[in-house]
Structures are given as structure tokens and as C-alpha cells.
């Protein structure tokens, strides 16, 4: 065997499904495609019959760093390039922990402030980000990736809209409130317990149903599970286990019909990585699993609820540090897989992902990759062009079987949150992490420029984006100004209302909006939530 063919001989998908040299009719069960077309239940082949002809996918890039003005400038840049919705990343250090910028934990690392998103400690800061951006024209993701931060981030965005005279019931956009990020992929120094997070997420679902009906309240998002190590069928199984927890918890309140709950939770996120065919299969299977779950378990019949809408972010962990320009090719391939899988919305990770947050050049490239695929390849004309491929359909069958098995394992342990509390899900992710790294040493897995075909350095000299340098000082100044110029008594009253609401177990969103509109700061709101809910006991084991 030659060296190249040895490298290519590994015969399984990334998640370990054995792969044959070729596939034929005998590999696919007769029911698999069964003459069904895209847009027909169970939607394996696509959620909508017209596909991208009637509605192109949304170009939706993660964006944000520095001062609110820096973030606003980057968002306007992306919109000018042709992005069709926008995402507001918050500074992770303050946002994820609900800390003000003068919290001791932040002061100890003040240079990090603003590295991963704009510092938004009040609705005033959010207004600075949104300067010159018409909230009624764009589909927005105003942050709140982490569960405990979502109520504040949503309230700040909606408060800015109200102050501009916009009726929030007309706004379109999405929340995130991401369990896979908060409790699996990126565990912060302090966060509210996972079980309380579920209550808060369902508060958001309930509030949106009443007051912001066009909004996607939360997004069940497998990305961070997958990028933490969960394989394709584990991501599928756990995403739907997470959805089941949310549906059941919301149903218990008896305030919203199941069809409406399902519709509002039916915009999910998956990660697409470099196993091209397996990840296309994953997206197709996701639609079928969602349909089957809603029909068989909840008796849902409304097609609007049964059609799963999918947002994909391409795998950051697939982007290599070595020779970063190679990642433009990786981004293109992952984007292509996403489109062949029929996504509604797509973000392509920057080619400098392994070095830094995206530079303007990397963002530009991510948008252009999507536009080239959308406009130059003719791919957007035909829905599910790979439907009927023996290999793809066979992979779909294998993935679905394994995903349902993984889902059953989760449910046997009391459900998704129980597997987070016990660390069971983390253990699966951890095993895969180690196996993937180990496979790079043994040569079972190949990364060009990393463990094969290594170069002598990066011929393009990508050095990593450095962001802005004055973020901490300016955030401190804005916070001082906020404290000086707001109605202090109003803040105290609003925070008391929030505390009482949390203690009573009522929906926290009205009180959160009241507190944010009174110009309470992120850290003050965080103090209330920490006091009421306490801290999650982190279960990660080696």
C-alpha cells in the first residue's frame, strides 16, 4: 500500500459507523426515501418543497468584540457585505458570569474584557451597539448564549426597541439560552443550576408567546456539544432530549398549546464538521426525528410545528491553527454540506478561528463563501439534490437508529438535565475528545498541515486579530456614568421586584424588563440571580 492509500484506508465515519467501498440498493430499506419529496412529512428530504428558490438560507455570522461602537461597526460592515441577519456577541467574561466590569474576578483579568464580544452592562450599552441599525428591518440574535444571561440580553434588546418607539411584538429574531454551551462546552466559574435554567428558559418561551410572538425564544443548539466531542448521533440524541425537557416543562404550565410550543422550539442548531456525508445525513435525520417525535409522543399535527428549521455553524474545532488559509477550503466544504443538508441559516467559522476571534478579512471571507455557494453553483435551485444516494440514505438509517438509542439512554437516566447534572454527557464528550486527539498521533485521522503534509509555517502570515485595547477603561467610565445618571431608587425597587419574582417562581421576564428599563446593571441583576438560585455543582470527571 502506498503512504497516501494507507492514510485513506480508515473505514468508518467520524462517529464510528462502518463504511463500505460502495453502496447499492441492498443497503437501503425500501421505506427510506419511499418516493417522498422535499416538503413532505417526515421532512427527511427537506422542510419546504421550494427550498432555497422561495427562501434563501440566512447568512448569519457570529460577530462582536471590543467597545459597543466596535461591535456596531462590525455588524454594519457585515450587513453591507450582504449578511441577512445579525448576531451580537457579548463580552463573555462579564456576560456569561453576570458580572459588572468592576467585579473582582474581572479586575483580575481586565485586559481580557471585550476580547470575545462587546461589553454590554446595561440597555444603554446595547443601544450604542445598535446605533444606525434598524431593529425592525433585521432578524437579530442579540446574545444571551449562556442560559443565565439570556433574560438580560433579550430584555436589553427589546428595551432599546421600546425606547426607539418600536412595538416589540413586531420584532423578529432569536434567543439562544444554550444548554450545550452553558453546561457542557464552556462551563463558567459560576452559573445557576441546570434545573433552574430550564425554568427560566420556559419563562422566555411563555413570555415570547404572549408578547413577542414572531421571536424564536430559545434555540436548542447542539453545536457546543459536538465541538466538545459528542459525535453525530450523540448530538442528535441529546439535542432532542433537550427539546423534550423544554416541551414537557412548558406543557406542565398549561399555558401554551403543544403545537405552539413545538413551533417556537423548532428552530435548532447543529454543528457541521468535516465528515461531509455523515453531517449531511445528520441534518436530514434531524428533521425526521423531530417530526416523528412530535407526532408519536405529543400528537402534533400542524405542519408548521413539524417542519424543523435548522441553523448551522461550521465546526470551529475543524479549523486548524497551522496554515490558516487552508481553513477557507474547510469552511467552504462544511458550508456546502450544510446547504446540501437543507439548512435555513448558516454561519461559517472564520479562517482564523484557531488563532483569535474573526478579523474583518475572515468575516468577509465567511460571507463570500456563502454568497458564492448561493449564487454561482446553481445548488440553490434543487432541494435535497443528494436524495436517493444509496450511501447517504444508508447513513441516515444508521444515524437515526443510533441517535434514537442514545436518546433512549438519556431518558432512561431521567432525561437530559439529569445527564448534565451527573456528568454522563460530559464523559461521552471527553472520551471522544481524547480518541480524536489520539487518532492524530496514530495516524488514524489526518489533518493536512497538522499531522500530514506539514509546512514550514504559514505562507500568508496570519497573526490573529487583536481586537480593541481601550475596552476596560471605557466600560468602567460608562458604568460610572450609568450609576451617576439613573434614578437610583427606581433601580432598587426594580431589583426588589425581580428578587421577589424569582423567589415566588413566577415568570421572571416582566420583572427583568422592568429592571433593565430602570437601567439596572448586568452585575446587579446577576447578584439577584446568584442569591436566589445559587451555583451549579460542576460534574466533569476525567
Amino acid at each position, binding site marked *: 500500500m502506498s503512504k497516501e492509500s494507507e492514510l485513506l484506508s480508515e473505514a468508518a465515519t467520524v462517529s464510528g459507523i462502518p463504511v463500505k467501498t460502495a453502496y447499492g440498493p441492498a443497503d437501503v430499506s425500501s421505506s427510506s426515501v419511499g418516493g417522498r419529496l422535499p416538503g413532505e412529512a417526515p421532512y427527511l428530504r427537506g422542510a419546504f418543497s421550494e427550498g432555497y428558490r422561495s427562501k434563501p438560507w440566512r447568512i448569519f455570522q457570529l460577530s462582536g468584540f471590543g467597545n459597543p461602537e466596535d461591535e456596531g461597526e462590525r455588524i454594519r460592515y457585515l450587513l453591507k457585505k450582504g449578511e441577512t441577519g445579525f448576531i451580537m456577541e457579548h463580552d*463573555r*467574561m462579564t456576560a*456569561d*458570569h453576570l458580572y459588572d466590569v468592576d467585579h473582582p*474576578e*474581572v479586575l*483580575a*483579568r481586565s*485586559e*481580557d474584557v471585550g*476580547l*470575545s464580544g462587546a461589553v454590554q452592562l446595561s440597555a444603554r450599552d446595547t443601544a450604542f451597539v445598535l446605533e444606525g441599525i434598524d431593529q425592525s428591518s433585521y432578524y437579530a440574535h442579540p446574545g444571551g448564549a449562556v442560559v443565565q444571561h439570556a433574560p438580560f440580553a433579550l430584555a436589553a434588546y427589546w428595551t432599546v426597541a421600546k425606547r426607539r418607539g418600536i412595538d416589540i411584538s413586531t420584532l423578529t429574531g432569536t434567543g439562544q439560552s444554550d444548554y450545550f454551551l452553558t453546561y457542557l*462546552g*464552556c*462551563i*463558567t*466559574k*459560576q452559573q445557576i443550576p441546570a434545573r433552574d435554567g430550564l425554568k427560566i428558559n420556559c419563562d422566555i418561551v411563555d413570555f415570547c408567546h404572549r408578547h413577542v410572538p414572531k421571536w424564536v425564544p430559545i434555540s436548542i443548539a447542539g453545536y457546543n456539544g459536538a*465541538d*466538545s*466531542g459528542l459525535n453525530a448521533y450523540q448530538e442528535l440524541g441529546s439535542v432532542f432530549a433537550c427539546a423534550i425537557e423544554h416541551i414537557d416543562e412548558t406543557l406542565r404550565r398549561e399555558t401554551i398549546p403543544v403545537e405552539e410550543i413545538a413551533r417556537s422550539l423548532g428552530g435548532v442548531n447543529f454543528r457541521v464538521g468535516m465528515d461531509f456525508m455523515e453531517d449531511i445525513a445528520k441534518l436530514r435525520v434531524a428533521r425526521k426525528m423531530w417530526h416523528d417525535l412530535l407526532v408519536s409522543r405529543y400528537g402534533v399535527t400542524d405542519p408548521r410545528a413539524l417542519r424543523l428549521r435548522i441553523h448551522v455553524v461550521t465546526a470551529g*474545532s475543524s479549523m*486548524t*491553527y*497551522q496554515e490558516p488559509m487552508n481553513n477557507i477550503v474547510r469552511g467552504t466544504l462544511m458550508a456546502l454540506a450544510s446547504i446540501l443538508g437543507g439548512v435555513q441559516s448558516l454561519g461559517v467559522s472564520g479562517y482564523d478561528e*484557531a*488563532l*483569535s476571534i474573526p478579523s474583518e478579512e475572515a468575516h468577509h471571507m465567511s460571507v463570500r463563501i456563502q454568497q458564492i455557494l448561493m449564487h454561482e453553483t446553481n445548488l440553490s435551485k434543487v432541494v435535497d439534490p443528494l436524495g436517493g444516494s444509496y450511501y447517504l440514505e444508508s447513513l441516515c438509517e444508521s444515524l437515526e437508529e443510533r441517535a434514537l438509542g442514545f436518546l433512549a439512554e438519556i431518558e432512561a437516566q431521567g432525561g437530559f438535565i439529569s445527564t448534565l447534572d451527573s*456528568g454522563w454527557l460530559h464523559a461521552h*464528550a*471527553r472520551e471522544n*475528545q*481524547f480518541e480524536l*486527539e*489520539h487518532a*492524530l*498521533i496514530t495516524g488514524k485521522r489526518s*489533518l493536512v498541515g*497538522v*499531522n500530514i503534509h506539514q509546512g514550514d509555517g*504559514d505562507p500568508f502570515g*496570519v*497573526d*490573529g486579530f*487583536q481586537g480593541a485595547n481601550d475596552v476596560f477603561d471605557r466600560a468602567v467610565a460608562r458604568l460610572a456614568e450609568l450609576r451617576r445618571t439613573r434614578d437610583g431608587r427606581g433601580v432598587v425597587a426594580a431589583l426588589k421586584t425581580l428578587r421577589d419574582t424569582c423567589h415566588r417562581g413566577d415568570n421572571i421576564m416582566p420583572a427583568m424588563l422592568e429592571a433593565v428599563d430602570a437601567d439596572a446593571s448586568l452585575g446587579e441583576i446577576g447578584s439577584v440571580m446568584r442569591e436566589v438560585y445559587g451555583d451549579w455543582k*460542576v*460534574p*466533569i*470527571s*476525567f
Partner: protein
Amino acid sequence: MESSDQFLSPKSGETVRIGGFGSRVLIAKTSLDGHWRGVSVVARALRDAGFEVILLGMVTGEEIARAAVDEDAELIGLNVGGRIEVAERIVGTLRSEGYEGPVFAGGTIPPYAIRRLKDLGVESYPPGSSLRLIVDAARRLTSKGGD
């Protein structure tokens, strides 16, 4: 903690030990970014190579320095998830607090930051560094090595 299959908490004050025969390595996160995949993989590789790994989580320079003295650490691994200025300050604190042993770093450390850490005598292992390379470095930097 009783077995080698231990719990990791990324929070300070909840030190976690894994392994336990060879040299003692402290691993700490410099930023408040909670991604743990890199730390987890590296800690496990070091443990499998025979090192005793002590995970400190998200801690300050002073906390790392104190732990290094208390635990008689032979090597400190910094998981750099934020700006290089914070990592530089932590290395400065370690030196001023009396830790004279080796320090190495991993994480999303861009090339310019690798150059700056090198000036402080800190080796960097950015994404894509093989676990074998990292274990070899840990052996080279400590007297007893892993096994």
C-alpha cells in the same frame, strides 16, 4: 478525592488531582473562558504518561503561585484563553511570588503572543500540537519526568 477517576471543577478552591506517581504538574486557566476541552485532553495525556496533574481551574496569578508552593509543583501549565497581557502578568506574578520552575502554555495563542511568551521563557503549544509533543515537553521540563 479517592480514586484516579476524579472530578474536575473549573472553579477556584476546588483543587482536583489525577494520576500520582511522577512529577507534579499544575494546570490553570488564565481567563474566565470556560472551554475545557483542551485542558481535559492535555491533563489526561499527562496523567497517562505518569504525571500527577493538579487542576486549579480559573484562578489568578496569586492563587497559582500559592498552589505551586503548597503543592511543590515542578511544572505549571497555563491554558491561555484570553489576552496575552493577562498570561504575561500571571507569569510575572509567579516569578515575583518565588516560583522559579518551568511554565508552559496551551490554548488559542496567536503567533505574536507565542513570541512574547517565549521572551519570558514560556513554551507554547497552540491548537494542533500533538499530545506526544506536549508530554515530551513536560518530561523534558521536569526532573523526574512522568514514568
